[in-house]
């Protein structure tokens, strides 16, 4: 059985298993699983408005998923997307508020600000890993919390006058799209979706077709052989985290310039970063996989809001389903083993 075939089958099986498990949980809890999933579906695709919301939700997920996937492919675990996107969010809103420029300059400038902020936040764990061999998982988790407190501080004390949220960014920095809003019945879908698709294509091209991508993948698989072959391992590790941070910062820009158009005090993380991990895993760490998985997760999240309304099921059920899907994907060894057994018995 070819490798590529298995790699597509596993996420699909994982999602199915997750949904089945969710149905079982609903049954045990006395809810109607069919009504529950129908509500989920309707909440995501039932109306053009919902479709718009799903696509809009998927937009930062694509960036977050690309960030995590890129890091994974190059041998690193970036759990810091939450923090990186927060600083990207703040940076883009800052630029959106601070300047008054024609859109053709202002919007790219704000996006650039998010990229730089994310890059910086990714640079720190990358540098510490490359130079001092400090594991990036812990550093990125710490940086998440630093980002949370720092951005909250900035919202309250720098970007606003002791308020809980900032003013709206100027229209010249906004990703708002009259066209997209019109065709989706006034959902919050915005131009960021195009950027997300472009970003996915760029990641694919970068990793698969360029010499830099070759180096990054090589270092990700085997640092020793890469060093031996003349590649600069430390530099590649740092570059990898920086690029990953850029994608994550852009996820924040999607929220700051598109979904909301301002920044506000956050009591806790948005969850986009952690969802990004699930998206990357489910998507097999490939560009196209991430896009599809992001759409799935967007649908799950948006659709889940309808479950308490239409079927009386707490929307946390989707949280449980997502967790189970992650378990199943991560345990792919056991799925592969089961497929192998199944094939042998079928013979």
């Amino acid at each position, binding site marked *: 059985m070819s490798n590529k075939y298995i790699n597509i089958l596993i996420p699909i099986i994982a999602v199915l298993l997750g949904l089945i498990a969710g149905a079982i949980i609903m049954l045990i809890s006395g809810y109607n699983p069919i009504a529950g999933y129908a509500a989920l579906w309707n909440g995501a695709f039932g109306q053009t408005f919902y479709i718009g919301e799903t696509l809009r939700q998927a937009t930062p997920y694509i960036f977050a998923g690309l960030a995590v996937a890129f890091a994974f492919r190059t041998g690193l675990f970036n759990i810091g997307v939450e923090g990186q996107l927060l600083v990207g969010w703040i940076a883009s809103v800052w630029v959106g508020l601070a300047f008054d420029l024609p859109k053709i300059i202002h919007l790219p400038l704000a996006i650039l600000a998010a990229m730089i902020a994310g890059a910086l936040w990714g640079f720190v764990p990358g540098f510490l890993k490359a130079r001092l061999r400090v594991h990036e998982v812990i550093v990125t988790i710490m940086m998440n919390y630093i980002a949370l407190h720092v951005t909250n501080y900035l919202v309250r004390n720098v970007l606003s006058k002791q308020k809980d949220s900032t003013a709206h960014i100027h229209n010249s920095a906004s990703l708002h799209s009259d066209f997209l809003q019109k065709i989706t019945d006034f959902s919050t879908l915005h131009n960021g979706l195009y950027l997300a698709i472009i970003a996915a294509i760029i990641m694919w091209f970068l990793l698969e077709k360029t*010499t830099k991508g*070759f180096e990054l993948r090589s270092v990700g698989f*085997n640092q020793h052989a890469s060093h031996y072959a*003349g590649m600069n391992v430390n530099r590649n590790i740092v570059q990898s985290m920086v690029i990953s941070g850029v994608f994550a910062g852009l996820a924040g820009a999607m929220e700051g310039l598109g979904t909301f158009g301002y920044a506000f005090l956050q009591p806790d993380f948005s969850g986009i970063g952690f969802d990004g991990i699930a998206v990357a895993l489910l998507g097999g760490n490939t560009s196209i996989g991430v896009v599809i998985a992001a759409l799935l997760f967007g649908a799950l999240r948006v659709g889940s809001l309808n479950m308490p309304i239409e079927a009386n099921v707490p929307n946390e059920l989707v949280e449980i389903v997502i967790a189970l899907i992650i378990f199943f994907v991560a345990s792919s060894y056991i799925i592969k083993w089961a497929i192998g057994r199944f094939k042998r018995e079928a013979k």
Partner: protein
Amino acid sequence: MRVEYVIEMLNIRKEFPGIVANDNITLQLKKGEIHALLGENGAGKSTLMNVLFGLYQPEKGEIRVNGKPVKITNPNIANELGIGMVHQHFMLVEKFTVTENIILGKEPKTAGAINIKKAEKEVREISEKYNLSVDPHAKISDISVGMQQRVEILKTLYRGADIIIFDEPTAVLTPQEITELIQIMKALIREGKSIILITHKLKEIMEVCDRVTVIRKGKGIDTLNVKDTNPNELANLMVGREVVFKTEKSEARPKENILEINNLVVNDARGVQAVKGLDLDVRAGEIVGIAGVDGNGQTELIEAITGLRKSESGSIKLNGKEIINQKPRKITESGVGHIPEDRHKHGLVLDFPIGENMVLQTYYQKPFSKGGILNFKEIYKKAKQLIGEFDVRTPSEFTLARSLSGGNQQKAIIGREIDRDPDFLIAAQPTRGLDVGAIEFIHKRLIDQRDKGKAVLLISFELEEILNVSDRIAVIYEGKIVSIVDPRTTSEQELGLLMAGANPEKEGETNNV
């Protein structure tokens, strides 16, 4: 006359996914004998012993201890039956002390806590009884390889083993330590133990063992009395055909110096001097073999030459140009090829296709890429060419390197290095873990390069390989080249002494090593 067997492994069959490691093998150990288990790398020796030790369960076959059939389902049961194993790759926890490693799993207790004083006393007693000197308090990470092996042996004696399996025990020892080990084994026999010795070294078998069982590719071939056989016969049984011990080659015709090393000083990973003022020249058209026991600076020397490790002082000149402390890529571009010691760690990215591995050092050059964009057509064209030229057996150039056998992985690496046409080629343990066919192929290629006028530096722990292939042999000891000898006039004995730091001319008596 009834024969008393302490251990009988009868018709053992052990399978792993895709391979039959042991196919109907029978091994019988007499009480008080040293019995050799002989076979090439991958023949199934370790697997068979792991079955005996309870780490694996056989699919078919029976094991008898002192005539009684037993089922050994885990090492604890093996221990209870009196079977102990001294592993080839030591099973020692680096952070623990000698005592902790020995008592692990069978700790003397007082009120729930480990009675460390009692443990140390028992360790001391056993080590004195069998003359195995160890320091009970020392951490494993701080003691020598020889002492580590003695700890391994003590582990088995602490558990009251009567049957001791030694798995390739001499691989990491100096010739003198090997002599000591042989004395230890003979002492154990005198105390009533029985020993199985897993090895592929014919000389050791002839010297120490009573009987030998030969296995080849998972099958038992024959069991012989050592008295009635000789190394040639054993080698033929082991390999299955006439083995040529000497490699065919013509006279070397060395020319100018390609590599000149002067007074090189290199520190190891812990900051301790490993190469201590080393001088060495390698000329075009010759193969210089470096003989030495692991840990005398060979690894650091190679790493310094290839730019993987910083040199503290001295000079390394390639074709007259200084290359010391340059970046690996620059050194490679200057004309150095390197077949690394650890092919999985340094030679290949196992999760890349074999084709991409072929351009691991050259992907950034034309025609393999232009302007930062890879040209896969060219990459795979080159890969196909090398795969054909160097007889790399692989389903395709897109197959992941991981899926190839060790021999084919090594051939791929050699192909890649030689194709770059380096003036100077380093081969570090190039035939480690490979079957005889691959070994012959690689040796031929090295001699080819030499005949083409390249300079070749061969580093190997196998003295036979060094003697066969080299034109000159440089012995490395404690970070210096202590002697340069002619393979045609030296002997393994002389080399052994030089490798251990002794001066053969000054020695009054020579030990029969």
